[in-house]
């Protein structure tokens, strides 16, 4: 362990060094560290004050949470990096998102056998809300995205794939490159995709399309329907809309009403 010397000679040497630096107008690292320590204490007090006035706002208002997160990102601060951070401790943002992380992991695990580890943000949202129960605080899709971004650190393959205006959440370490992602985006419209569709929309060769589809099958993300008219359909269970109830077709609506 490196110690600054404490003998008389060492003290004199230190004074000399300091004097030299001060002459040049530079501030030493250890001086700045002392300054930071003081500023940190002050900041903690300011944050406590802020928390006493606005903690509820953060808890109840998802829009405000978004603004808060964006501002933190802009200045280079991650309020969710650690449960020991001031933000987490005093504003309670930490517990909110870390618990959400646990719930997301559990939902993904429970549904993995059905969708291969790929799920739409909508369905995840529905399932998480269900699991949280009626008395729990509401969470928005933005909250889920932020929680998932943090989960990436655990190395179990969480990633977020943009498709047609929403997102697919991957929760297994399956290798998905640009080609795979693009095909997923194409499949989002109908819940399935065919080789001809890929060739028509993306202008790919048959072989390239087939390789991508084979990979999705192998990873358990797609199911093969050989009995479909004209050509095999590759269905993505993650995109089956009847598994979540936010949107229903006109027929279903008509049936539901007298």
């Amino acid at each position: 362990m490196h110690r600054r010397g404490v003998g008389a000679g060492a003290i004199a040497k230190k004074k000399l060094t300091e004097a030299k630096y001060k002459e040049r107008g530079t501030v030493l690292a250890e001086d700045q560290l002392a300054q930071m320590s003081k500023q940190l204490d002050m900041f903690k007090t300011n944050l406590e004050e802020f928390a006493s006035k606005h903690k509820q706002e953060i808890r109840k208002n998802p829009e405000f949470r978004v603004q808060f997160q964006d501002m933190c990102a802009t200045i280079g601060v991650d309020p969710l990096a650690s449960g020991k951070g001031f933000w987490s401790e005093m504003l309670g943002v930490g517990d909110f998102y870390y618990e959400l992380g646990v719930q997301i992991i559990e939902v993904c695990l429970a549904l993995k056998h059905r969708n291969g580890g790929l799920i739409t943000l909508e369905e995840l949202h529905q399932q998480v809300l269900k699991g949280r129960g009626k008395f729990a605080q509401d969470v928005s899709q933005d909250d889920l995205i932020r929680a998932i971004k943090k989960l990436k650190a655990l190395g179990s393959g969480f990633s977020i794939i943009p498709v047609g205006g929403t997102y697919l959440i991957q929760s297994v370490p399956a290798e998905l490159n640009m080609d795979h992602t693009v095909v997923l985006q194409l499949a989002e419209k109908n819940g399935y995709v065919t080789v001809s569709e890929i060739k028509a929309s993306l202008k790919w060769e048959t072989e390239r399309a087939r390789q991508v589809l084979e990979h999705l099958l192998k990873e358990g993300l797609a199911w093969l329907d050989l009995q479909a008219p004209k050509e095999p359909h590759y269905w993505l269970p993650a995109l089956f809309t009847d598994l979540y109830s936010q949107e229903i077709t006109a027929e279903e609506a008509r049936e539901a009403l007298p």
Partner: protein
Amino acid sequence: MKFDTGTLLLSTHRLIWRDQKNHECCMAIPLSQIVFIEEQAAGIGKSAKIVVHLHPAPPNKEPGPFQSSKNSYIKLSFREHGQIEFYRRLSEEMTQRRWETMPVSQSLQTNRRPQSGRIRAVGIVGIERKLEEKRKETDKNISEAFEDLSKLMIKAKEMVELSKSIANKIKEKQGDITEDETIRFKSYLLSMGIANPVTRETYGSGTQYHMQLAKQLVGILQVPLEERGGIMSLTEVYCLVNRARGMELLSPEDLVNACKMLDALKLPLRLRVFDSGVMVIELQSHKEEEMLASALETVSEKGSLTSEEFAKLVGMSVLLAKERLLLAEKMGHLCRDDSVEGLRFYPNLFMTQS
């Protein structure tokens, strides 16, 4: 009659409510009847609500649940959840006003003509003014919070700049900073949520906190690990530890940082990262390489196995089962057959039968 347990549906033309138990009980209101909607946040003993302010009923309105009401609004109470999303979608429909342009395809069309403008009746103007005032006041509360937040962020930004300056000086050795002080610096960064400017990582910057955490983890995980064959994925650990804590939860990065210190602190657990990126915690006494011999035996007995089949036989998670089989393959004990039917592992006869 009570209307307190039902399902709310939104179409381009109407809001529809149907009783959950008695499906015969169903009512609808055209979106064109809505003047304004506002949210009411949940509170203690209160559920989140949407208040829907309505135009006065037209004379030819179909009969409804009540003959008359002293209120010109209805309240939708979300006892369970969904208020945020529903409000967002209802607002969208109110903005788009698709009922004005889209034909209604069924005979359930109301007798009310779609309006292109808003009919203002006398009572409505007073209500709208009050709503406007209330909205301004809510805005004021929000803007006060934003103002305070902005001031706070300015101070936080100063801290970020200061930490960058300190890091630069450390790099360029402008002044002497002891190891204790380095540790202190790291803990300041942790408190503020600032990425370590020296190492560029937000994790891997071990502090006192993480060292303590590492020691705590040993206590918490010893028994669960033994119950699970000596190995657990980091995601499992994250859930287990946080569920046990209940509050003051660990962030994913806290957990990873603590685990990275296990080896250095010579604790009986270790962090291991597989080629796939999957991270696990193992008991030091656990030797994954020894497990490979028994894995080979199991696969040989059955001829061949997929990860799922192996997981079920041995009583492991599919994730870890796959990693074990992949490791066995890497070591040359197993080989794979990768087809659209799945990934199947066979004993590697190329090795054993020369």
